[in-house]
């Protein structure tokens, strides 16, 4: 059931046409296996899982009872002893077990305040292991960041980190952008999250938190999420002429043929061109004098 609802990822990623295309057939161990799950922490998903598990347990118990009735009737008809009635399994409880921190309903004052002020813009809000998470509508992220920074009750002064995830199994929200806010004055941390589909351009956080500048460039470089109203939306880690976004799940670990580049030869006379330009700026004639 769950597998049918999830859109199936393509078997091999679409590599760009060109001279440098990685040969998957030559090294089958390099084949890309895309994950089919979306392990984003979420209260709704957890509650649905708990509900489904309870329903499955109930169905199993009902089946056991029905089987017992059938077996009992059969035994009576044949004149044998009645079979033992089934015993419902009780989940084992051990206080020494490590408890997995499941998502909880929000109790923190910050989260309640956010929920009250934002209203329907909040898509999901929960606490997990003492960490506050709030997922908001992808169109309202700038407004929410402004609120978090300027509201006297929240007062999150610092954008400690901004990152993104890619789970291609969820096509309608393949990417998520995560904002880790820190309040130095109140000693609290808050995680904001937006889910974005492929091709969506969220609003840049630079207007509110200037430190988002390079982090958004890194997200663009690694995952290909562009940001609107960003002062300089260019690559930051990879070279400028890089093809593809390396941290996407469908990106091969050896790249799209970038390793085939030969630096020993002058690529397209580029170095010579640069040398000529520099020499021209300095007024030096580097060109070989031609024989008459």
């Amino acid at each position: 059931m769950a597998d049918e609802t999830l859109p199936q990822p393509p078997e091999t990623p679409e590599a760009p046409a060109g001279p440098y295309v990685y040969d998957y057939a030559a090294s089958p161990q390099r084949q890309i296996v895309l994950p089919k799950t979306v392990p984003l922490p979420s209260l709704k998903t957890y509650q649905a899982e708990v509900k489904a598990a309870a329903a499955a347990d109930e169905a199993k118990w009902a089946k056991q009872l029905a089987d017992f009735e059938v077996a009992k009737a059969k035994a009576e008809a044949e004149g044998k002893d009645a079979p033992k009635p089934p015993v419902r399994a009780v989940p084992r409880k051990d206080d020494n077990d490590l408890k997995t921190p499941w998502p909880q309903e929000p109790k923190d004052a910050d989260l309640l305040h956010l929920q009250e002020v934002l209203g329907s813009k909040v898509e999901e809000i929960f606490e997990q292991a003492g960490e506050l998470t709030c997922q908001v509508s992808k169109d309202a992220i700038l407004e929410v960041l402004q609120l978090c920074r300027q509201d006297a009750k929240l007062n999150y002064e610092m954008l400690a980190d901004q990152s993104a995830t890619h789970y291609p199994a969820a096509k309608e929200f393949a990417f998520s952008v995560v904002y880790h806010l820190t309040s130095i004055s109140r000693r609290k941390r808050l995680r904001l999250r937006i889910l974005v589909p492929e091709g969506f351009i969220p609003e840049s956080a630079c207007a509110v938190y200037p430190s988002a500048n390079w982090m958004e460039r890194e997200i663009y470089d690694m995952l290909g999420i562009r940001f609107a109203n960003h002062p300089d939306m260019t690559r930051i880690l990879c070279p400028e002429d890089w093809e593809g976004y390396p941290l996407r799940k469908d990106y091969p670990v050896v790249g799209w043929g970038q390793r085939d580049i030969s630096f020993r030869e002058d690529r397209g006379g580029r170095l010579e061109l640069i040398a000529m330009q520099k020499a021209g700026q300095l007024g030096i004639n580097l060109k070989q004098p031609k024989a008459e």
Partner: protein
Amino acid sequence: MGIMQPSAFEQILITTKVEKVMNWSRATSVWPVTFGLACCAIEMMAAGASRFDFDRFGAGIFRATPRQADLMIIAGTVTYKMAPTIKILYDQMPEPKWVIAMGSCATAGGPFDSYHTVQGVDKVIPVDVFIPGCPPRPESLIYGFMKLQDKIMTSSLADRYKDIFEEVG
């Protein structure tokens, strides 16, 4: 008595080849570029500091410009973003010039069998000595450097410009 007494001439003069003198002077005053890429550069600095003292071999003068350097120690991981810069720096060094690939990253990509790492700096520039290790100890670097000194001592001008001579004919 059968023992040859050196003449007065030989007591004040050493006869040798010009090439050998040139090689000796080059091998004992190799100036590297101040150029480090990753953790191997820390070991390179340790080799240059007082405990291991690269100056004993005449290679302690790390020049801050490639135009005054003879040796380039590629100490660390070479990424595709850095590779053109390494090529430009190498092209700026005057002849004769040598290159040491230090550590497994510079020799063969090391653990980074990945999209961003050049699998060996010999894909970018010609390398004279490869030093294995991750990172190599300063002793390894010194041993590799002594191997380079041997190479310089046995080199000749004719070898170095052999390709050019063959081209000219």
